[in-house]
């Protein structure tokens, strides 16, 4: 089934915010931001700006009728810096002009004087100084303290993982149009329309019903537009209402990269204890999360780090502690995996190092400790329908891990300048917002008299294919051709109080809500059909392939006829439904609970080749067995897996965010920040759908897919360092992602 969106995409007809026809008189906003990482604003001078032709206004915190506050979870973030600046790239003012070039020209003439204060960039330094956004969070299971003495091996280590730029191809942007009665309509490229609405209301001092937020679609989000799309939308709305003109803000790429937060860098310590058989008896970890200058979603991300601290393994004694450290960098934010990849990388590093010391293959330890049915996670939930072992063993078997490993060894024996490495990466990822109340959604379904169907939900289409899935769900329930169904834009006037499209939950939550809403209409239609056909019971009536069947026999009443009949009989052809994930909870006092509706499992086999002369590498292959449940839309699901994996590979290899010692981003363009291109993507790529794995907790037995595959990419790191190890056996291994070309070559030539 081809979704409406994909058909428009390939024809270049999809409209993103910047593609929409703007109303006459639309102005353009350009954000002026702090050039200093930490300091007091002493003087702001706009005199020269207003001399530039085409300038309409310079908007600052002084123009805000409500609160100068855009914090989501914690109120610690200003829309425009008022007295102090806390990172390079923090917005100070918005220059509004007749077009983009004039606005930029104006912004360049702003004079700002900032009295510098000492900045902090290192999370450990922030921790030492007590600069924590929230008190430390701790997850624990069993008793690590008494477990260490039972271990034959206790190994400690340090692990670093870097930041990552989302690099959604469509940069952040919004168009705000004043509407009558002092309200505003905001068309925003956001994953969280309600967040935009709520915060615009707070800043503009308006009730939420005066703000309509509409989201046509996103040119990629990946978490980067969950919280961080809000500022630009609110700025546009503020300027639009002040000037009574439509105002558009589209961030130029470099400004987007400089001003917005990215994946959180982590610095971590661990301690792992094993017995001689390779069984992990105890595991302790300390995560220093670099949160940036304000909380944003950091606290929720910190929690997910803890939820996934043991990845796909059962460990009886665990203590994981996480620190949310405030620094003078842009507020780091949601990014596919949401803190999970960081702790899984620590876990895998610990196993890798332990294997080195035990003199075994890491796979041996991985396999020994995989989760089994009924095993308890450190947060108290027990596994149900656990498929960790199944996926791992299927990967080994299907892709012939044993002989593949032997081929790698043979290659390494025969080659001097090139070495190969291989690694397995199991993943277990929990599905639900860990903030339980967010696990709700609603859908509004209209059937029109020509038989066409229009569906609005809380889900934002950003390439993840939620629209294709919703379309598929509705067409299944009504048993009509999918072409009849259109998934409308996400709009706060049609669907209120939306949770952001995030946590891989978009299709699950909105899928269920759509099922419920469609079923409400279906039941009414069956009743109409019953009466029309004179059946004695509507259970004898069913809709199949666009026709009404009675007693399993096709009638001459087709979909359109049925709809018309319902309409003239004054039966409602619209329905709204709300869905809330049942029986999940998380107790933040005890740090225990059944936080997730279910878990997703899978294992990847990754192979890489390192050029030991030049210090470069290629990813040869990625082969995965993944538990998709029963896929609603296999093309979408496979695409999500493939895309997630390559993004994950990028995080641990090419993608390096570098700030200079004054907190200025050096990798602020696509020429310096490199993401995987078509050549870098694995030469061989295979995704196997684990067979016969229904999921009772997903719509039509499906499973969520957005985030879990990202973490297969971590296998790329270990494939590369295994290859490096083959060139320099016995050398102390580094656990510091990304493993850039520079790190590879420097490691080869460093002295132990």
């Amino acid at each position, binding site marked *: 089934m*081809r*979704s409406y*969106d*994909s*058909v428009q*995409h*390939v*024809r*270049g*007809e*999809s*409209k993103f915010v910047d*593609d929409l026809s703007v109303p006459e008189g639309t102005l353009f906003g350009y954000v002026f931001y702090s050039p200093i990482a930490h300091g007091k604003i002493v003087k702001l001078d706009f005199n020269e700006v207003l001399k530039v032709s085409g300038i309409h206004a310079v908007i600052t915190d002084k123009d805000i009728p409500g609160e100068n506050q855009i914090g989501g979870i914690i109120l610690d973030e200003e829309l425009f810096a008022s007295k102090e600046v806390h990172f390079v790239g923090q917005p100070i003012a918005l220059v509004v002009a007749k077009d983009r070039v004039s606005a*930029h020209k104006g912004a360049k003439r702003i004079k700002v004087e900032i009295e510098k204060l000492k900045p902090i960039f290192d999370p450990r330094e922030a921790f030492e100084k007590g600069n924590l956004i929230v008190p430390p969070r701790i997850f624990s299971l069993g008793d690590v303290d008494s477990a260490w003495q039972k271990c034959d091996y206790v190994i400690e280590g340090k692990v670093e993982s870097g930041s990552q730029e*989302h*690099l*959604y*191809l*469509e940069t952040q942007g919004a168009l705000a149009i004043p509407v009558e009665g002092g309200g505003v309509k905001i068309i925003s490229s956001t994953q969280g329309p309600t967040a935009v609405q709520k915060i615009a209301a707070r800043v503009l001092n308006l009730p939420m019903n005066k703000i309509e937020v509409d989201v046509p679609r*996103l*040119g*990629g989000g990946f978490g980067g537009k969950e919280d961080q799309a809000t500022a630009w939308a609110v700025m546009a709305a503020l300027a639009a209402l002040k000037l009574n003109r439509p105002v558009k803000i589209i961030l*130029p*790429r470099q400004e987007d990269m400089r001003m917005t937060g990215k994946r959180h860098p982590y610095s971590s310590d661990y301690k792992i204890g094993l017995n001689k058989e390779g069984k992990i008896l105890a595991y302790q970890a300390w995560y220093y999360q670099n949160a940036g200058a304000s909380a944003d979603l950091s606290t929720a991300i910190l929690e997910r780090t803890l939820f996934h601290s043991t990845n796909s393994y059962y460990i009886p004694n665990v203590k994981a502690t996480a620190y949310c450290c405030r620094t003078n960098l842009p507020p780091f934010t949601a990014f596919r995996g949401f803190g999970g990849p960081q702790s899984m990388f620590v876990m895998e590093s610990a196993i890798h190092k332990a294997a080195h010391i035990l003199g075994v293959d890491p796979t041996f330890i991985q396999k020994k400790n995989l989760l089994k049915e009924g095993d308890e996670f450190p947060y108290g939930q027990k596994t149900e329908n656990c498929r960790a072992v199944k996926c791992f063993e299927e990967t080994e078997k299907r892709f012939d891990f044993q002989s593949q490993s032997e081929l790698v060894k043979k290659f390494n024996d025969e080659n*001097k*300048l090139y070495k190969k490495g291989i690694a397995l990466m199991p993943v277990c990822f929990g599905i639900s917002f860990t903030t339980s109340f967010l696990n709700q959604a609603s859908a509004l379904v209209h059937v029109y008299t020509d038989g066409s169907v229009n569906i609005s939900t809380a889900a934002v289409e*950003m*390439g*993840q*294919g939620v629209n294709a899935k919703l379309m598929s769900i509705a067409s299944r329930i009504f048993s009509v051709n999918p072409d009849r169904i259109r998934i409308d834009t996400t709009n706060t006037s049609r669907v209120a109080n939306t949770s952001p499209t995030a946590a891989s939950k978009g299709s699950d939550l909105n899928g269920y809500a759509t099922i419920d809403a469609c079923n409400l209409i279906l039941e009414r239609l069956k009743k109409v059909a019953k009466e029309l056909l004179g059946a004695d019971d509507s259970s004898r009536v069913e809709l199949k392939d666009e026709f009404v069947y009675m007693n399993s026999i096709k009638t001459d009443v087709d979909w359109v006829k049925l709809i018309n009949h319902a309409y003239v009989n004054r039966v409602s052809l619209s329905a709204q439904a709300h869905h809330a994930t049942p029986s999940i909870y998380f107790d933040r006092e005890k740090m225990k609970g059944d936080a997730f509706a279910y878990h997703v499992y899978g294992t990847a086999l990754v192979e890489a080749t390192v050029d030991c*002369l*030049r210090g*470069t590498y290629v990813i040869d292959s990625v082969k995965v067995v993944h538990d998709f449940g029963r896929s609603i839309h296999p*093309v*979408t699901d*496979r*695409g999500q897996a*493939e*895309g997630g994996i*390559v993004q994950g590979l990028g995080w641990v290899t090419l993608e*390096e965010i*570098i700030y200079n010692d004054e907190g200025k981003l*050096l*990798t602020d363009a*696509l*020429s310096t920040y*490199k*993401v*995987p*291109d*078509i*050549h*870098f*993507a694995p030469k061989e*790529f295979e995704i196997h759908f684990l067979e016969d794995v229904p999921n009772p907790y997903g719509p039509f037995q499906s499973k969520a897919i957005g985030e879990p595959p990202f973490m297969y990419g971590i296998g790329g790191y270990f494939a590369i360092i295994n290859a490096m190890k083959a060139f320099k056996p016995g050398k102390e291994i580094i656990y510091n992602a990304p493993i*850039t*070309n*520079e790190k590879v*070559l*420097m490691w080869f030539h460093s002295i132990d």
Partner: protein
Amino acid sequence: MEKLISFYCNNELVTVQVNPSITLLDFLRNYKKLTGTKEGCREGDCGACTIMLGSLVKDKIKYKTVNSCLFPIADVIGKHVVSIEGLNNSQLNFIQAQFIDEGGTQCGFCTPGFIISLTNYFINHAKYSVDEAVVSLDGNICRCTGYAGIKRAIQNTINYLNDINISKVNPVTFLIDKKILPHYFSELPKKLKLLQNKTGSLLKQKKNKLNIVSGGTDLYVQKWESLLEEENYFVSEDTGLKLISKEQNKIFVGGAVTVEEFLESKIILKYFPSLKEHFKLFGSLPIRNRATIAGNIVNASPIGDMSNVLLALAANVHLKYKNKKRVIPLNEFYLGYKTLDKKKYEIVEKISFPVPKKYFRFNYEKVSRRKYLDIASVNSSISISVQNGKIKEVSLSAGGVAPIPLYLKSTSKFLTGKEVSPLIINQSIEIAKSEISPISDARGSKEYKTLLLGQLIKTHFIKLFPELNIDEVLK
């Protein structure tokens, strides 16, 4: 400052009075409301703005891809611009359908650029292979799909098109037949010819005392906004600067020759067959289609790729202003960071370098963060001839390790007359280290760059002299 500009935009003749310096991207989006062409980065690094540009060559149209974000509308005169909208039929074409059915499109923002690049590949090749098609997508970034769906779409399209023997037909007619291109493409050669006859020599440009804009692939990255306010002299269509010739023992290459034209030249292919492979590491296809030899030299980036190669080829720069001409060796052209022995309005008319003699060997090495479409951390070229076991002549260059594209003078001098041996190679690396002054930046620390240059010098010798004992060289 506005100029009258006429060209075909998809199936429409466009005649417009416009600032010639605005980019084609802005023109398509803002004036024509053709929003399928996207702005992703405005520096030619993402490919979301890729369009096809057709130029009349004899009676046929030669199509190539360019980044419309770096392309001044001045250079579009008399040409055929194809945006994604210009490929649409009422039904999806085969490539479009494959992108959907194989998961080659997710958010859709990059998709038009990919489809344009791929269509251009099919127009320009008589034999198809997935690997070559992938090379033609080196300028397109997708953040969603992981490229797997795109590769499947390519494979399926190749299977579909390989049904018949395509080598004997006109690719455009063939692709129209296969419903990949709309029918109107067949009319374009005639229409363009008519247009060219009408517009004659097109834009009459003042040539003196203007900003010189060549391919624009650097200038439009660095200062597209200020170019809008300046009077520019667009030289990339200047036929006088586009010649490649061999005269006696020298090869001459016009300043406005693009990297891709350089590579396709029979003269270059004959004497430097390995360059075709090396140059895949230069920018991307749409960039190579625009970036010029002179532009690369004059931009003076310390990590320029073309300048690096030309330094090792002992090239000379031929400068011209009005009727005054002078020639200087490229290795004396760079005076300091972005400082040249060139007056503001002097133009690089051409460059020249000697035809390789017997025993000549050449190698180029580049290591960047990402292998393709990236700027080097360090690059290096060597040309070397060995006779009777001794190095007769050698030129070694290094980029990314000094404020200028560097000719390794002392190292080259040291190597001359020596026998190629692991010891000499390692000694030469020590000398090279004394010639360089790398800085730490986004492309690597100075320690890394120093180490890397040594590795690349070793690589040169290992590749060119396979008989060397690798273990000894690695020591």
